[in-house]
């Protein structure tokens, strides 16, 4: 583990906040993409829109 010295809390919290926000954004975007795609498939049939 790299030594962050006196600023360990600041650096670690900056990384934690950023990575959580990025992971949340990807997860929400992916989940909605799957949900909407399935809903359209139910209406039109699979692979209707490519």
């Amino acid at each position: 583990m790299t030594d962050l010295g006196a600023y360990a809390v600041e650096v670690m919290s900056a990384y934690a906040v950023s990575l959580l926000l990025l992971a949340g954004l990807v997860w929400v975007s992916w989940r909605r993409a799957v949900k909407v795609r399935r809903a359209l498939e139910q209406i039109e049939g699979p692979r209707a829109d490519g």
Partner: protein
Amino acid sequence: MSIWEYANPKKFIATTSPVLPWVFGAAGLCLIGGLIWGFFFTPEDFRQGSTVKIIYLHVPSAMMAINAWAMMLVASLIWLVRRHHVSALAARAAAPVGVVMTLIALATGAIWGQPMWGTWWVWDPRLTSFLILFLFYLGYIALWEAIEDPDTAADLTSVLCIVGSVFAVLSRYAVNFWNQGLHQGASLSLDAQENVADVFWYPLLVCIAGFVLLFVALVILRTRTEIRARRIMALQARALREGVRA
């Protein structure tokens, strides 16, 4: 072949289907590689100590916060001039990505500012214009949600995007305009004397590439979702009309 062919929703989905996994993969590689490189394999700065490692998140996210709005501006102008629905939907799709980038820039900036400046926040030109840009993002998203007719929503949000562009530009150049406040000038410069040292610059470059690729991947994914959601709305409206006629 014209670029406007990709404004066709079906063509957009067909073209982006094979590309999307590669863009996500490249984004993941650059982000993970760049952050590991910067976090574990770069030295401390002689003045800022280990807090310099926050640069690998703060600078790329701040860049993308401004560039996302610039992309939304171009897409909005295309909508207003040429009325291509994909461009309006792409602008809508980019807004939540931009708001998260702005939030990361604000949060990491505050966390970095506390030990370096002795304060989490100051009403400095760059910080203030960034906060206003964040509020514009929220307003833009809220306006899309508030208006039922999609074309009216696209028109009004496009106008809001043009107005908000003033703050996107201010966020970038506030330090130069007012030449005051705590925030330093640009970390990146073509002038080798002004640019960050090479040991920080190369991993930072990889992280910037990662953020750009992640933005592109998310906007493509979210635009495809918006196109499908719009198609569902159209089919439901058609079914309703036919039901009323019958």
